[in-house]
């Protein structure tokens, strides 16, 4: 399983796309928002946390369809399914690799991008923390969506349609932490709920995703 993780990371680095694209997309979203909303600082500051969360979520969505589709096309998934690694493990590792190449970098650049949106001072730590707690769930739910649509020729759009409603709880709690943090309010409850969702998703979702993958492979 570690070999699979290392291979996926190596592929993401060598093939480009993985790291760069999601980050560039995130940057563009954040840059475009002030053009749409107006340069007024007092208007940007209250929505900064939410915009950063939406940007990170969409950037995460961008690379989901490559997570399993590429391995499906070249037959790797068939061979992995006959390897001694359980498919649940394969899916978990794939989600993990996806998080390391998108969720983690997005979390790290969120704070500098917050400056562009005039995120209030106390919000930075909470923003990074909420993204760190929430993005693993985004990757894992995304892996489920990718497993559902892996056999389809043009699964990308359908994948977004299936995954976005599933992102609602994660987004609500994650963005709530960031926003309350920025406003200097108590954040413990949404933070704990956000962590609970992530842990629950990480525990249960590999089974659903592997089941979907098995159905698609036969």
């Amino acid at each position, binding site marked *: 399983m570690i070999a699979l993780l290392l291979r996926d990371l190596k592929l993401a680095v060598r093939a480009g796309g993985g790291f760069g694209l999601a980050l560039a997309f995130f940057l563009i979203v954040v840059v475009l928002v002030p053009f749409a909303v107006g340069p007024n600082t007092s208007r940007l500051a209250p929505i900064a946390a939410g915009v950063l969360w939406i940007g990170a979520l969409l950037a995460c969505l961008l690379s989901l369809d490559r997570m399993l589709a590429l391995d499906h096309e070249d037959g790797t998934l068939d061979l992995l399914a006959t390897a001694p690694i359980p498919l649940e493990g394969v899916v978990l590792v794939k989600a993990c690799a996806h998080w390391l190449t998108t969720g983690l970098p997005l979390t790290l650049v969120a704070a500098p991008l917050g400056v562009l949106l005039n995120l209030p001072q106390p919000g930075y730590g909470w923003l990074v923390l909420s993204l760190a707690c929430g993005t693993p769930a985004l990757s894992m739910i995304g892996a*489920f969506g990718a497993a559902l649509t892996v056999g389809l020729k043009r699964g990308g759009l359908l994948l977004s349609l299936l995954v976005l*409603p*599933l992102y609602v709880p994660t987004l609500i709690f994650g963005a709530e932490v960031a926003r309350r943090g920025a406003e200097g309010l108590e954040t413990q409850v949404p933070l704990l709920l956000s962590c609970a969702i992530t842990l629950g998703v990480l525990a249960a979702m590999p089974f659903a995703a592997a089941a979907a993958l098995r159905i698609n492979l036969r």
Partner: protein
Amino acid sequence: MGSIWEYANPVKFSRTVSAVLPYVAAAALGCLAVGLVWGFFFTPDDYRQGATVKIIYLHVPAAMIAINAWLMMLAASLIWLIRRHHVSALAARAAAPVGLVMTLIALATGAIWGQPMWGTWWAWDPRLTSFLILTLFYLGYIALWEALEDPDTAADLTSVLCLVGSVFAILSRYAVNFWNQGLHQGASVMRVEAVTGADTEEKVSNVFFAPLMVCMAGFVFLFLALVLLRTRTEIHRRRLKAIEARERMA
């Protein structure tokens, strides 16, 4: 045999549906006609909401069916996953568009009701938001059915999606509750006006209750009739495909 699983046989199911469908459809029409006419013309206007309150006869039953249709799909999906009865999977598929239309009716009538009452077509009230999310779940479910070619694969994958979606629908419901309270404290204005709020409930239990119940029964029969009809159509479609496949092989 006498077991209910007998009806999982497509032939037997189709035959039974053909026998029962006219009665169910007639019951739906009858109940709806009686309930709506009674409700619209023979109940007094609400002292605060005026004639607007009468949209309740469409709004509440549609909302009820919208949620229960998903529950029915969940049950049918489980039956398919466990017992592999094709009819069950097809019934789930047949119910989805009906459920989607009911959600849209509930949302539309809600907006029409909300405009004069709250002065806005739409508010991010937890109840409304949850329904919007339910709409998205229906859309995703239907889209997945349409996208997949192989019927068994489609049935399996949509069943898995239905199970996972149900869990996330409940999570979203609570998340939305939490989110709105966090947003603005004044949501109670809407709560009072909401259907189950104390203010209207009093009235509902008096004059509006009986016609509302008739309307609800009408919607249940309507849902049943539509799902039975659509399931039978799906069975015929599958049968046609099977015949075609058999011809190809021969």
